[in-house]
């Protein structure tokens, strides 16, 4: 019979040896580095076929898995098949809207791949032509990350034209037209929003934009006339009224609140009382 003490020693020695082996094993494995993320992922069509009538459930489960998987931030190569995963989910049920939105969020904020997100949102918009938010999101990403205002304007135009698009989409559209240096068109759009505003907040927002756009147009025009005045008289006008006397303008414009612009006779500059710096890019 083996003595009890010997068994205790064997137990302790075995445990220590196992811990040592575990330690050695850990040294050979990079738990938090690259890992083979996929063995394979069948196409959406194949999964739809293999789900035998439970395709919705298959899409749900793949989507839930993807949320957990892309939240595992310690995996450094988790974005290798990002587009494929969301393409597969959306191929199984193209009308399932959440994967487009969440997938594009992951692509933008985690993988930092805006064109990939735009492709996914375009697909969402194609399969759900009555939904405005795919174009809205795409427009926002173009505006925020690509600084591609014409493209952002294109998406917002498309979103605003869809039924049920909320008022803020139309405001974004008008703002992007303004950012694309088309103040005349932007002014008309904001004026329409101002006149049809549904609440005080919307009216105030439209007012501020109209104020800014009008002041940009007016001050640009006035500064042009002031420059011509200086060419003719070799000095800055002492006040804006001198522009009328010199027949350079027929009347002085006022800002959208009805107040006069502020003129600096020493520098020859015209400014509005309030300035919104929206064009800081």
């Amino acid at each position, binding site marked *: 019979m083996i003595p009890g003490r010997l068994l205790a020693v064997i137990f302790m020695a075995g445990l220590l040896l196992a811990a040592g082996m575990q330690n050695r094993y850990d040294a050979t494995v990079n738990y938090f580095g690259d890992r083979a993320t996929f063995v394979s992922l069948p196409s959406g069509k194949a999964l739809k076929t293999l789900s*035998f*009538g439970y395709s*919705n*459930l298959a899409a749900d489960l793949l989507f839930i898995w993807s*949320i957990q998987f892309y939240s595992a931030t310690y995996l450094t190569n988790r974005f290798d098949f990002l587009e494929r995963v969301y393409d597969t989910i959306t191929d199984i*049920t193209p*009308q399932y809207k959440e994967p487009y939105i*969440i997938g594009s969020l992951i692509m933008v904020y985690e993988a930092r791949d805006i064109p990939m997100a735009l492709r996914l949102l375009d697909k969402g918009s194609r399969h759900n032509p009555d939904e405005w938010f795919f174009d809205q999101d795409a427009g926002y990403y173009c505006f925020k990350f690509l600084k591609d205002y014409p493209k952002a304007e294109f998406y917002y135009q498309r979103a605003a034209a869809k039924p049920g698009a909320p008022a803020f989409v139309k405001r974004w559209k008008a703002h992007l037209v303004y950012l694309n240096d088309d103040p005349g068109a932007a002014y008309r759009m904001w004026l329409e929003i101002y006149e049809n505003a549904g609440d005080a907040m919307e009216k105030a927002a439209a007012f501020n934009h109209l104020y800014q756009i009008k002041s940009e147009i007016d001050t640009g025009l006035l500064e042009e006339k002031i420059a011509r005045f200086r060419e003719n008289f070799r000095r800055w006008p002492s006040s804006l009224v001198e522009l009328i006397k010199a027949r350079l303008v027929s009347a002085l414009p006022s800002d959208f609140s009805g107040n006069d612009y502020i003129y600096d006779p020493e520098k020859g500059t015209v400014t509005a009382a309030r300035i919104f710096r929206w064009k800081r890019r």
Partner: protein
Amino acid sequence: MKMSMKGIAINTFKESARNKMFYLLVFFGILFALSSKLISFLTLGDAMKVLKDTGLAAVNFFCVLIAIFTGINLVYKEIEKKTIFNILSKPVSRDQFIIGKFLGLALTMLTALAAMAGIFFLFVWMSGGGFDLKIILYFFMLFLELLVIVAISLLFSSFTTPILSFIFTVSLYLIGHIMWTFNEFKTVLRVPFWKHFVQGLYYLLPNLDKFNIKNEVVLNTAFNPWTILFSVLYALAYILALLAVTILIFRRREFQ
């Protein structure tokens, strides 16, 4: 309905309802349908969509299991236990026997489905999904699908063993849900004979995906009333055809 047929139907229902497996499957169907709430917690966005998807899939899956397991045994058991001699010695024709068995199974499926569907419907309402009447339409379509499956299992049960019946019925169930691939498959075939063969199979085999309106229910997309009507008529016609062939086979069977 003749009394003999009614008697067989009621007896079939009682026999199925006495089966412990029936209760077990109904219990698990309800359990899985209710556990859809847990799965819906894991998603982002519309959790109700996942809840409905998972719950409807659970009810669907367990109802199909009940239909297959009950259907494949019915006629075979009567032959194996020799009780068929008792029944057929009475003024009951073989045709009435098959139709009675089918009606009894249909009643069994209706009971199982009503139990699972009723609880799930209330569960959706309690989870904030409102009284979604589309779910009721979904369960109606599922019932039609179950009737087709029951008719298929009854057909196989009338001439082969339960294991083979199970294999054949499950195969037809799976094929029935991928019938849409037949149309695509046809386009890649070049030999006219095979094209016609695939076309023939397409019309011969049951198209069960017709009854699958989960997408319309959970994504709240529009129904085409004509599609629903044609699906109902398709189910009726297919069941009639299956019962006819089952009766034909059963008439020729000799019992020893």
